[in-house]
Structure formats: C-alpha cells, structure tokens
C-alpha cells in the first residue's frame, strides 16, 4: 500500500485529514434541575419535564409540546436518585412507562422515537465526519463508494488509478444509520459516474444508498465480490476500468452496470 503522504485526504466538507482518534467529550450534561420532587407520577423515561397532571394516559399527547425540542431523547436519571424514578420497558408504554396498547399513544411514541434518528444525524453532522474521502486528484469525474473492510483496498486502488492518470476519488462510508445523506449526496453530485464496491452478491450497500437518497441509480455501477476472499486492489482497478473501456472485470468479481432507480 502506498504511503499516506502521496495522497491528500480531505473530508467531504473540505476540512483536513481524519484525526487519529475522535475528540473525547469533555463533560456530561448536568441532570435536569426540574425533576419533580413528588412521586405521585413517575417522572419516567419521557416526562420528567411534564407536570404530573399532564401526563395521564388519557392525554397521551399532552406532553409532546414540552418535548418537541428534545430530539426524542428523554432526560436521564440513574437508579438511586431521589425523585428520578422511572420504569423502562420494551413494550409500548405511556410516557410514565406503563404498558399501553392505546393507538394514539402508540403513534405518538413511535414518532417520538423516529425523531431520534433525525436528532442523531443532526448532531453527527455538527461534528468531525465519520466518512473518509480519498482524493488524490482535484475535480475527479469518477467516484468509488465503499464501506467496511475493503475501504483501505479501495484507497490503494484509487492511488494506483490516479497515478495512471484517471480522475477518480473514493468515499468510505462508516455511518450507515442514520445515513449521512448530505455527505454522500455531495460526493455523488460531484462525479459523473460512481462504482460501489462491496463484498456481497446482492449489492446491498448500493441498494441502501438508493433507498436513503432516492436518486443516483443511473450513475451507480456495482463491483461485487463474493468468493470468500477479500478484495485485492487490482480487482478494484480492473472493475473501475470496466466503466471506462468496457473490458471484463477480474473473474473473481462481478460488474453490474448502472440501471436506474
């Protein structure tokens, strides 16, 4: 593998290379100061901020107003704290943690949980990226999209291709859910065609990208390998050249041309 000094790695947002370790959090959020001191209504997983009067099962949506801005994440208490009592359950439950099959409650709770995905993605987007851009040449027309253990192999192949005069870059995607929509969109919009390199027979990652972004199918080719051995850089090089010159890829791999969404 070539040394990292021969290529410039940049994040899709344009900042410099991936740090050796992600930044560590410096402090924990303080526990909410407004936990109720009474225990007549359990300040449960969801409603520590609600007044006891507003969180009965008959008004299951009652507390959503005060919870709209919390990203679907409840304040947390730890067993042993005065006034922090909760009941956690995997069954659908009221904000107090008691099991409930009420349909309105179910909808409110599920939608609340879905909000977490948006909130997590928003928070991650505000931090150093988890995706790895390998961009040895500027303004590449071609992209290689990959994930997982063949990322390093793909980066080695990109270096070889660039050395051969191809205008190509790669993006290794490390966050699959919630999906880094903005970063992957930016990457795919910046190229004319892309090769999705993955080690399975059914193009699962390409399918995920299409499901999450709902577009780009016409520019996503697949390079699949599923003989039980990991990718070799040469196989990725050959797979890429299939796009350019239409030659057969390595016999250990399968090339699936872009077909649309």
């Amino acid at each position, binding site marked *: 593998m070539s040394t990292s000094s021969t290529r410039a790695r940049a994040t899709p947002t344009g900042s410099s290379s991936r740090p050796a*370790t992600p930044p*560590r*959090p*410096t*402090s*924990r959020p*303080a*526990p909410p100061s407004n936990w109720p001191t009474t*225990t*007549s*209504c*359990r300040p449960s997983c969801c409603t520590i901020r609600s007044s006891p009067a507003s969180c009965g099962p008959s008004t299951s949506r009652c507390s959503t107003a005060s919870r709209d801005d919390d990203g679907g994440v409840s304040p947390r208490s*730890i*067993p*042993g*704290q*005065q*006034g*922090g*009592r*909760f*009941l*956690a*359950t*995997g*069954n659908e439950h*009221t904000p*107090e*943690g*008691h*099991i409930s099959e009420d349909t309105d409650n179910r909808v409110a709770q599920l939608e609340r949980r879905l909000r977490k995905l948006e909130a997590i993605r928003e928070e991650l987007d505000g931090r150093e990226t988890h995706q790895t851009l390998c961009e040895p040449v500027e303004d590449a027309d071609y992209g290689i999209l990959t994930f997982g253990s063949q990322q390093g192999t793909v980066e080695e192949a990109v270096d070889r291709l660039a050395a051969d005069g191809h205008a190509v870059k790669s993006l290794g995607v490390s966050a699959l859910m919630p999906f880094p929509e903005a970063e992957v969109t930016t990457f795919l919009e910046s190229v004319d065609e892309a090769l999705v390199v993955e080690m399975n027979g059914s193009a699962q990652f390409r399918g995920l990208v299409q499901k999450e972004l709902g577009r780009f199918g016409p520019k996503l080719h697949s390079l699949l390998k599923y003989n039980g051995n990991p990718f070799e850089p040469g196989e990725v090089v050959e797979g890429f050249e299939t796009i350019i010159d239409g030659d057969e890829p390595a016999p250990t791999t399968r090339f699936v041309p872009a077909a649309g969404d």
Partner: protein
Amino acid sequence: MSAFNAIGSDREVERKEFTPGIEPQATWCPGCGDFGVLKALKGAMAELGRDPEEVLLVTGIGCSGKLNSYFESYGFHTIHGRSLPVARAAKLANPDLEVVAAGGDGDGYGIGGNHFMHTARENHDMTYIVFNNEIFGLTKGQTSPTSPKGHESKTQPHGSAKSPIRPLSLALTSGASYVARTAAVNPNQAQEILVEAIEHDGFAHIDFLTQCPTWNKDAKQYVPYIDVQQNDDYDFDRSDRGEAAEMMQRTERSLYEGEVLTGRFYHEPDRPSYGEEKREVGEMPEEPLAEQYHDDDYEWERSYDLLDTHK
C-alpha cells in the same frame, strides 16, 4: 456529595409506598400466585426500611415480568431471559443500590438459563426471584423447563418427553451463595426468606412456587407445604454443600410426588461477591462508577484507549 441521595436514607418506610399511583391493581388472573410475590416483596422492602428510590427491580418477560408495573421503585422490564445481565450491570455500577431481579421459570431457567448459571457462579450481589409455575403462563400454558415429565400441553400434546430441570440443585452447582424455595400460598415465609435474601451479600436465588390456576390445570396449589426448617424430619446443615445438595434433590423429586418442601436450602454468607472481587483487584473503582455520570469535572476515559489491540 453523592448524587444518589435516596440510598441509605434510613427512615421508616411504609409498605404502601411500594404501591404505584398509576396501575396499582395488577392484571394477573384471580388466584394467581404472582400476587403472593408482590405482597411478600412489598412487605420485605418495608421491613428492611428500603426507600423505593434506592431499589431497582429488573424483570424478564412473562406475567412475572409485569411485577415492576405494580411495584413502585426504579424498574427495568428487560427482554426475554435477560433480567440478570441488566441487573448485574446496574449493581456493578452502583453497589449500594438494592437490586432485585425477577422472572418466570421459562424466562430464567430456559431462555436465560446461561445467565442464571453464570450470575450464580460469579456471585453477583442481588436477589433473584424465579416465579415457578411449571409452565409458560403468559403465552397460554406451554411446557416449560420445570414442567413434569409427561405433562401434556399444546406444545407437548403426547406428554413432555423431557425431565424437568432441578432449579435448586442447578443454583447450588452453579455457585449461588443463598438458595431457597418458597410458595405464594405461604406469604409469611416468603417475606422472611425475601428479607434474608435481600440482606445476603451475594447471589440469592429464590425458587418461588406460583400456582397458575388459568393455564396449568394440573397445577397444585402447593398446599400443604412443609417448611424444612420447622419440621424435624428434615435435619440438615444448610451451610454444608453436600447436605444441602442431598436435601435439594429430595425436594425436587418430592414436588412431583405431591410433597411441597420449602425453606432455606443453602447459605454461604462469607463468599465475596463479584463486585467485591473486582474492586479488590482494582478493576472497579471504590467510588461507585455511577457517580461519574453526574460529575461535571470527570475526565472520561475512552474504552478504545484502554485496549492494546496488538499486544
């Protein structure tokens, strides 16, 4: 100052404090043995003066898993067979918390049988109540690990071909340091045993016979029961592993012959708990791990930094 100000508050606690304001009435069937567990547990906690907020009640799945809906404390209704891993973690992170795990015989001896064995082996300091009704009750009476051989059910229509497991012997062999059996029909003994189990520093296993009048039609009401400590026919030393093992085998066998033996079967008071062992070797801090959560100045370690991946 500790963030866990409910722990060790040392005050008079009334039994009714363990009855939740929401859903105070359990939805178990009339005549269900689970009511006996709930009653005995409330009584034991009040007797010991435990504050509802220093108690964590962790349950599995089944009718028994709803125990913490009807018991006012911190509660965690886990997934099937997994009450023990959650309880263990909570206790390790906050050793002064009073941790009780509970579930059914299918949940604990079947689905989570591995956790039962190894939690006993490691002697985690907690009380584990197994509601033993000899069937899977919530799902309408299928054969469970404790169903007698030949027991007919929807899943074993020609009679179970399997011999039931021996819960007391299993606990002892695995390493539990307190083993008892009680019955829902004997709430006074149940409360006494629960008090002992909660006070015991180590893994206390209670096989709690809970009759299921709805789905186990063969179910005995577990009467008449015999308390082996109060009957001269059963003289054994419960601190002696060999004598305890023999008594347990007799108890397990005789249940299927209509003789319900209950009481304390094994007690090893001095064995260090897993938490004590880990603190002794320096792998757990002396100050509860959970305190770090509320410490704004704490320098957080990353698990990654503790690994030497290519040593």
